[in-house]
């Protein structure tokens, strides 16, 4: 079957077997190996990507279901190559030691990004709830929670600074 999928803003046309999983489409066809695979039963979340903005387990989505959709993978989180281009969630994971082996990390970060997009100041309990469908075998979760909170705080500070800018420019006008 021919499908057209936009991944991280780039459109791809491919002929695929109907049974091909989105995980394998991303990994094997597009060579975007940041999306991982960790279980047979949709339990681990190593494969989480965003499908039209919604975090999904890509091992439980057929590639053909993504036809016409916009997929975001970990490779699409940063805006560029430098450290300054990293998403605050990526920075938070680095500062707060939210990863060890890094295998769960892409999925955890995408879920966290989606959470912050809808709830910019989540409580620790909300963060735990959001990532509760995913397994991390290394971190014991605490530092993932802190990483997301770090990102939320950074984004709040950025927003405050932007508001202050607008305020001051309004005052000038």
């Amino acid at each position, binding site marked *: 079957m021919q499908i057209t999928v936009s991944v991280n803003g780039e459109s791809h046309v491919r002929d695929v077997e109907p049974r091909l999983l989105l995980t394998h489409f991303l990994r094997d066809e597009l060579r975007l190996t940041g999306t991982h695979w960790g279980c047979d039963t949709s339990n681990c979340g190593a494969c989480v990507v965003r499908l039209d903005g919604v975090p999904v387990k890509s091992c439980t989505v057929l590639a053909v279901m993504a036809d016409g959709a916009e997929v975001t993978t970990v490779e699409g989180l940063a805006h560029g190559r430098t450290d300054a281009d990293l998403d605050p969630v990526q920075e938070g994971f*680095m500062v707060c030691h939210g990863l*060890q082996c890094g295998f769960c*990390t892409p999925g955890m970060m995408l879920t966290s990004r989606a959470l912050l997009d809808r709830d910019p100041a989540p409580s620790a309990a909300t963060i735990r709830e959001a990532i509760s469908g995913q397994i991390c075998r290394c971190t014991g979760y605490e530092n993932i929670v802190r990483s997301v909170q770090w990102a939320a705080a950074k984004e709040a500070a950025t927003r405050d600074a932007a508001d202050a800018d607008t305020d001051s420019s309004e005052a000038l006008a």
Partner: protein
Amino acid sequence: MTAIGEKGVQDPSVQIHAAEETPRGYGSMKRKEDARFVRGRGQYVDDVVLPGMLHGAVLRSPLAHARITSIDTSAAEAHPKVHAVITGATLEGLGLAWMPTLSQDTQAVLATDKVRFQGQEVAFVVADDRYAARDALALIDVEYEPLEPVIDAKRALEAGTPVIRTDKEGKTDNHIFDWESGDRSATDAVFAEAEAAEDQLVVVQDMIYPRVHPAPLETCGAIADMDPVTGKLTLWTTTQAPHAHRTLYALVAGLPEHKIRIISPDIGGGFGNKVGIYPGYVCAVVASIVTGVPVKWMEDRSENLMSTSFARDYHMRGEVAVTRDGRIRGVRVHVLADHGAFNATAQPTAFPAGFFGVFTGSYDLEAAHCAVTGVYTNKASGGVAYACSFRITEAVYLIERMVDVVAHDLGMDPAELRMRNLLRPEQFPYQSKTGWEYDSGDYPHTLQVALDKAGYQELRAEQADRRRRFADAQRSGAGPAGTAGEPVKLMGIGLSFFTEAVGAGPRRSMDILGLGMADGAELRVHPTGKAVLRVSCQSQGQGHETTFAQIVAQELGLSPDDIDVVHGDTDQTPFGLGTYGSRSTPVSGAATAMVARKVRERAKIVAAAMMEVSADDLEWDDGRWQVAGDPDASRSMADIAMAAHSNLELPEGVEGHLDATCVYNPPNLTYPCGAYICVVDVDPGTGAVDVRRFVAVDDCGMRINPMIVEGQVHGGLADGVGMALMQCIAFDLDGNCLGGSMMDYLLPTSLECPSWELGETVTPSPHHPIGAKGVGESATVGSPPAVVNAVIDALAPYDVRHADMPLTPAAVWCAAQGHPLRPDLGIT
């Protein structure tokens, strides 16, 4: 501020380190490896694609014990995308149907005569892609003649039980080994006295440490690439011990060792699961030889859980001789060790039960003895995996559970009982009654720090209040539901105090298959003062690229950012036994410090030549060689490195350049310790356990990167909660694995884990170059008894003395009703 420890609530009093500015040495800094991981640019085995690569898949046995009567592969071979089908018969022709295990037993690569556990490897298909390879598995026709399986370890030695290892000539039973440690007669004498004396007693308890699986998030796999022209095999594989694997492949496959290169790229967690060599790896190698192109094999999750190294499966009887005022005199232990169908446990040769001999724990005893019997059963082989430091997990669980049983029988507070019996600081170095020399520690202090941090007295007061309310509710007939309609939850407080023995090990007593447990390090300092360190250990997430750079930085006055760490490629790194049993920092970390010191001494001679002074006049100060008493006359490592490569006339004793190599032979193990306190709430109506708080005070000696150390502890605590409450690879009596997927083998999520509260004490190891003791496995070892002790403590109103892990709601509820379960057999 919200209440301390409420789940998911961050409390500022919780000690936690985040990354700071990059230090010139020790301190919390961002991990160097994270830059690639957060961008999705890590490179795990399955991310590697080689030109022309084919894909392999393993056909596995559906039965636990059966004779293979025929295998028909013709339909699979006829599949248009299939290149080869390999069976035991193919391997027999190559002399590879069986391979040696790490315990000097043999293990079937592909079954020839019989299958001996559910999930055992029977055939290997090589096809164009992973889907086609799995399609073809369904086309292989195997006929089995079922045999009676041996599942309950307690029945393995009974007369009339079928013999599993009929492949071993003359084998008439399922016995593997008997091993003992300690002084039997001295111990028996203490117990005889205790039994006779009015003021003493003997406390006995049976317990099972059930089979669990490490389940790293990345499963195991390999890509074998045999170059038909050069005869060189490159094997990309998920291994924690690349050099040991290279030697083993040379022995297994008869390949010359210089023609084998093992590359272990980024590893998605190991926890011991990636120490052994699995049949799938060997099949990939054979497949690459047969097809002449690279072959990738990645197992799926069920294959990982059902066939690769499990952990524990120890059936233990603990006995403690104790005076009625709480002085522990002796400990006696009997263990039945279920090793599965092949004895493939990975421990030093002379230690068939690993380091279980440290079961005397952290206490000053008069005598101790244990006897361990290993048996074959129709279950997956492996063993001694899962962050256990060679069976220390089992030993610590045994002694820490026994101490609580003693406290229960004596009616004594478990903290007080521990305080009374802990080793005192002046007893170090301490010779244990089973022959271990504990290097250092201040146990009472560490325990006190934990008690203070937890607010132990307040917790006990709160518990007393809860118990009163629970009793009131019971009396008033409201039952567990409580009077106010809200269930009165039972509160439990559990302690453990563990001593680990890690950093294996001294070569005179410890080897794996004849390989001494030393590790090498090689350090190159480039002319501009940037350095490359090459080490034999292999990170699976521990952050070696950062920590080891920090060790070099600390020794040489460089920035860790200017030091690259190379690991995981046998062609590029010196020999060493790898990463498991918390041995990286104790062994490779020591090698790193020693090699950096060699460089520093060499640099001293060069610096003296540069400044035209005697080397004896120089002192090392703040990262520079300086003329004593003259701070203006000094040279940095970068200055010296350039000079060492220049045309400077070099004095005697240096050949030019600063590079050095080193092999570190540990003189002793290191002995980290810790005091853990767990607080749980148990719903008496459902048996559900909620871990409310977990206080962990670890003493791992010197901390190189405190942020990373805390991360290691966090992960281990989650593991401990998981093993205590959820994880279990159980089997039904037909030998069906009941934990073969993540649906059935429950791993802790963010909701089962509390916000960990950490503390520390620091007692450096006196024999380690930087005083570090290793921490990777401490929390996995120390936490399960704390959780179990807490749950049993919560059940005091039901007078429960013991219940076996995992303490699922059903297990807790049944224990409270007086009907304990056998969770390992899936019997409810």
